[in-house]
């Protein structure tokens, strides 16, 4: 049982480049989330999804896009990378949307130079 898998683990992007952060879960969870964590800070919600075909903005969605074509996958897209997007990105999933049931991935460390 892999849980929540994120790829890549590390990435360096140049300003203006684009990339997709991959997230997949094998627990058949309906709820999935993307958070970013800046140094010395808590996690901030970027986007979330309550089921395939349904996505919604979180606290800091600007500069990002998501899609949820399947229950398992929830990719996060950066179209025009900016230095302000340098952060660690965490994907999480949940069966019922309750905080005790969140399973987090191990994160993707992104640097934009």
């Amino acid at each position, binding site marked *: 049982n892999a849980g929540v898998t994120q790829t890549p683990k590390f990435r360096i992007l140049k300003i203006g480049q684009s990339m997709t952060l991959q997230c997949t879960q094998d627990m058949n969870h309906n709820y999935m*989330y993307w958070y970013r964590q800046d140094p010395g800070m808590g996690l901030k919600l970027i986007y*979330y999804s309550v089921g395939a075909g349904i996505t*919604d903005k979180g606290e800091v969605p600007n500069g990002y896009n998501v899609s949820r074509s399947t229950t398992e996958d929830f990719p996060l897209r950066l179209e025009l990378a900016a230095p302000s997007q340098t952060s660690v990105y965490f994907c999480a999933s949940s069966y019922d949307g309750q905080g*005790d049931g969140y399973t*987090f991935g191990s994160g993707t460390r992104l640097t934009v130079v």
Partner: protein
Amino acid sequence: GESVGLHLPTLSVQEGDNSIINCAYSNSASDYFIWYKQESGKGPQFIIDIRSNMDKRQGQRVTVLLNKTVKHLSLQIAATQPGDSAVYFCAENAKNSGYSTLTFGKGTMLLVSP
């Protein structure tokens, strides 16, 4: 907007001591709180939770206290061990467009010396 925050950014204790990590919240409508532990290079892991109809909840070596009057919760770790060294976050389960999402505080780093 309303947010969840922490009082102490770093807490250093000796092995065997009891640790207390504090958290203040400002959303009086919050009814569910969670403590997470984040080890270096890993995602947060659930420790314990508490609902607003409770004042105290105990787990294995951990206790969460909730004071709704002053909007404060704390995490107590008994007999702290080096393996407890990590960053601890409180989180609030808040309604967002009808669905619940987590709002995290800034975190407290716990350093346990042998």
